[in-house]
């Protein structure tokens, strides 16, 4: 499974459709405080199936929809799509026949969230399984959100052992 691109629309401060290409090697993301860098990271985690609004710094899941600013009214819909390649044909389930996959998640205010793979609506756990099988996912150690390192440092020994269970 290879990640190629992330596309956001209406997700937090990214109200306009935005594409982030994810090429080989090291891609840096820079900018001043509060401009949206962590929002990009959260968009990826959200699309992979993050269930906790609190871990997205919100009170409820609707908080990830663009809330309006200055001249712009708030939105009632948000969508994030992850574009993937499947060259090794090694993913579980019916989508293994595809060379390319688009995993997308959308949310409608006061209405709920929906997951799709290549346009077909699927369950949350189908998406979870897809990523977990490739050793990634919203809870994976490979997604290190801002402040996570401090959490690991100040964690009690019992909590740290649970972190180890991710590897088991």
């Amino acid at each position: 499974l290879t990640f190629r691109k992330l596309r956001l629309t209406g997700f937090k401060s990214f109200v306009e459709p935005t594409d982030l290409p994810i090429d080989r090697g090291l891609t840096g993301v820079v900018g001043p405080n509060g401009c949206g860098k962590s929002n990009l990271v959260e968009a990826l985690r959200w699309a992979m199936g993050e269930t906790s609004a609190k871990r997205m710094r919100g009170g409820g899941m609707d908080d990830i929809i663009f809330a309006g600013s200055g001249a712009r009214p708030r939105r009632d819909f948000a969508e994030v799509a992850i574009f993937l390649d499947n060259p090794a044909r090694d993913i579980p389930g019916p989508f293994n026949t595809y060379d390319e996959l688009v995993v997308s998640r959308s949310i409608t205010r006061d209405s709920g969230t929906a997951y799709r793979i290549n346009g077909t609506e699927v369950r949350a756990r189908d998406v979870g399984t897809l990523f977990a099988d490739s050793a990634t996912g919203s809870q994976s150690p490979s997604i290190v959100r801002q402040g996570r390192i401090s959490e690991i440092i100040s964690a009690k020994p019992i909590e740290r052992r649970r972190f180890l269970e991710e590897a088991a």
Partner: protein
Amino acid sequence: GRRRLLEAFTQVNDNFTSLFQRLFGGGEASLKLIESEDPLQAGLEILASPPGKRLQSLSLLSGGEQSLTALALLFAVFLTNPAPICVLDEVDAPLDDINVHRFCDLVEELAKRSETRFLIVTHHRHTMARMDRLFGVTMPERGVSRLVSVDLARAEQLRETA
């Protein structure tokens, strides 16, 4: 369950010890299961001594040393099951310039070794300089983010303006 955890522990411990030495340019570190005979009930203790310093519990180390040690643990877990993507949000914030370079050396090698694509959010000039490409995030319109491809010079400018 128990056996799998102990196998994972051994593998992570080996990775952790060698990654620590890479990030610190020497020194010793290890993990320890404590507080219970049963690994499924135990706690995970981290012992570390940067080069030339005595072996201590993680809490006695400096802020930057603690972060570097935690990164060694994080990547040790990562290496047991390398993911196709790894996203790091400002993990280099407490590191001085020498440690930032060692961190970048490691990440560069992990990218090659496991074909993992890295997405690294940073404020550090040295980290920016080591990336294969850079994207700048700005808010030309207040409250609305915009993403744009930038070179290093423009990225340095971006740090300085809001």
